[in-house]
C-alpha cells in the first residue's frame, strides 16, 4: 500500500508541486508499479541483478586534458549570473 503522504514526500524530494487530485492519481500508479516489482521478487534468488542493459564493460578514457568551455560560453544559458559565477538560492543551514 502506498499512502498519499508518501506521494507528497516523493514530490517534495523531486521539488515539484502536485494537486490533491494528482496525488491520488500518482498514489494508484505508484501502487501498480510496485505490484509489478513484486513479480520480480518471485524470481529465484541466485539470478544476478542487472545493473546495465548494455553488454559493455570497462569503457574508459585516458587521463588527458581536453577542451573546456570559456566562462562566457559556460554562463551563456544562465539567467542568473554575477562576475563569472552562477547565482543560486542561498542554502539555509
Amino acid at each position, binding site marked *: 500500500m502506498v499512502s498519499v503522504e508518501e506521494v507528497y514526500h516523493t514530490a517534495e*524530494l523531486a521539488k515539484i508541486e502536485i494537486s490533491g487530485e494528482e496525488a491520488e492519481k500518482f498514489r494508484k500508479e505508484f501502487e501498480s508499479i510496485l505490484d509489478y516489482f513484486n513479480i520480480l521478487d518471485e524470481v529465484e534468488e541466485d539470478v544476478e541483478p542487472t545493473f546495465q542493459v548494455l553488454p559493455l564493460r*570497462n569503457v*574508459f*578514457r585516458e*587521463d588527458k586534458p581536453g*577542451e573546456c568551455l570559456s566562462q562566457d560560453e559556460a554562463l551563456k544559458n544562465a539567467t542568473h549570473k554575477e562576475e563569472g559565477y552562477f*547565482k*543560486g*538560492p542561498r542554502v539555509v543551514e
Partner: protein
Amino acid sequence: MDEVVIGLEVHVQLNKLRTKLFCSCPLNYHHSPPNTHVCPVCLGMPGAMPVINKEAVKAAIKVAIALNAEIQPFTVFDRKNYFYPDLPRGFQISQYDRPLALGGYVTIELDGEEKRIKLKRVHMEEDPGKLSYRGSITTAKYSLIDYNRSGAPLLEIVTEPVMNSPKEARLFLNKLRMILEYLDVFDGDLEGAMRVDANISLKGGGRVEVKNISSFKGVEKALSYEVMRQKNLLQRGRIVTRETRHFDEARNITVTLRSKEEEQDYRYFPEPDLVPILTEELVKEVEGTLPEMPEEKRERFKEQYGLGDNYAKVLILDVKMADYFEDVAKYVSPKLAASWIVDVLRGELNYRGWNFLKCREVLSPEEFARLMKYFEEERITEKGVVEVIRTKLDEGGDVEDIIKKKGLFAIPKEEIVRFCKEAIEENPKAVQDYLGGKKQALNFLVGQVMKKTRGRADPGETAKMLEELLA
C-alpha cells in the same frame, strides 16, 4: 573506558590526476577564475555523457590495496539524487551497493601501541561544485556557484565506529594522508583536498553526525567540541538527540543542521550512462606500480643508512622529506643529513609554512649537501649553517656566496695560530698578567684574536691555542 565512539567518512580528492572523473576538464583549477574548467558534462547539461577516467580508477585501486581493503571484482556507479545548487544535475554520481572495495584497515600508533582502525568501505564519486557568498552566509541573499571543482575525482573512505577519542581520529587522518601521499595520488596541501564527516556518540547518548569538516585540524577541534557538548548534556541528565550538525570553523563549535534527507530519500539507482567495471585486469596493472610504503621505508632507512629508529621514524612521516633526505644522503654522511633535516631544516620550513617540495625549489638537495660538506670539513660552524639555511630560504642566492658575504667560512687553523701569535706579540702586558696568574687576561687575548678574525674563530678553541702557545 571506551565511552566515546567515533567513526569517520573521509572524502579525499585524487588531485594528482590531470583530469576530472567523468570528463576531460583539467583538474588544475585552483587559483583559476570561476567556471573556466567546465564542460557540458560537469555542468550537467542535457545529453552530455560521462566517461570514466581510467587513471582515476587505477588510483582508487592503488589506495584500496594500500588500505588492505578487498577490491570487488565487479563494481558500479549509482546516482544519488538530491537538490543542492552545487550539484548541477540534481544527482551526484557515486557508488552505493557495489562499491569498489570493502573492509581494510589503517594501523596507527596510539600511546606507544599499535592499533588497527578498521574500514567499512572505499568508493569512488564525483566532487560537487563550490558555493560561496558575498559577505556573511547569514545575510547573503543568494549563493555564487563555481563548477570548476564539479566532477573532480573523490574517494570516500568509511571507517567502522572504532575510534575512542578525537586524538585517535587525528592520528588516523594523519596516517591516511601519509599513505595517500606515498601513493602519489594526493596532495594534502591543496585547498579542499580532504573533507570529513564524523559520527560521534557517548555511552548512553544518540549518535550525532558532524558534517563537512574541511581541514585536518578541524577534525580534532570539532570532535573535542562535540565530546564536551554531549558530556555536558548527559551530566545534566539530558538526552543527546540523534541529529546532524555542522562544524563552524570560524567559531570552533558545531551547530545543529536542519534535518537532511534519510538514506532512502536519495533514491539511489545504477547510473544508466556508465557501464560496470570489472577490476581484475586493472588490479594486475596497478599491483606492480605500488611504491614503497612508510613502514618498509623506515626499515630500509635503518638498514641502508644506519639511522636510528627515532630519525627514521620522523623522516618517513612525509614522503617529500624522505625523498629530500635520500637525495642529500647521496653526497654526505646520512646520519649527518638526517639530523640536520629533522632537527633544523624541518623546523625552519614549518616556521615559514613551507613543505619539502617548496624547499627543493629554493634549497636543492645538492646545495644542502654542499653546505653539509662544509660543515663536515669544519669549514663552517653549526651556527653558520643555520644562518645560511635561513638566509637561503628567505632571500635565496647561492650557498657559497652567502657564506662568503656573511664571512661564515671558518678560518683555517694555521691562520688562527698566526693571529694568536700576533696577539701575544702585540699585548705584552696582558701576556705578563696571564703568566703572573691573572687568568682573566687570557680572555682579553681571545678577544683580540676574535677581533682579527671578525668573530669567525671559535672562542673555546682559540683559548686553548693561546694557552698552549703561552705554556
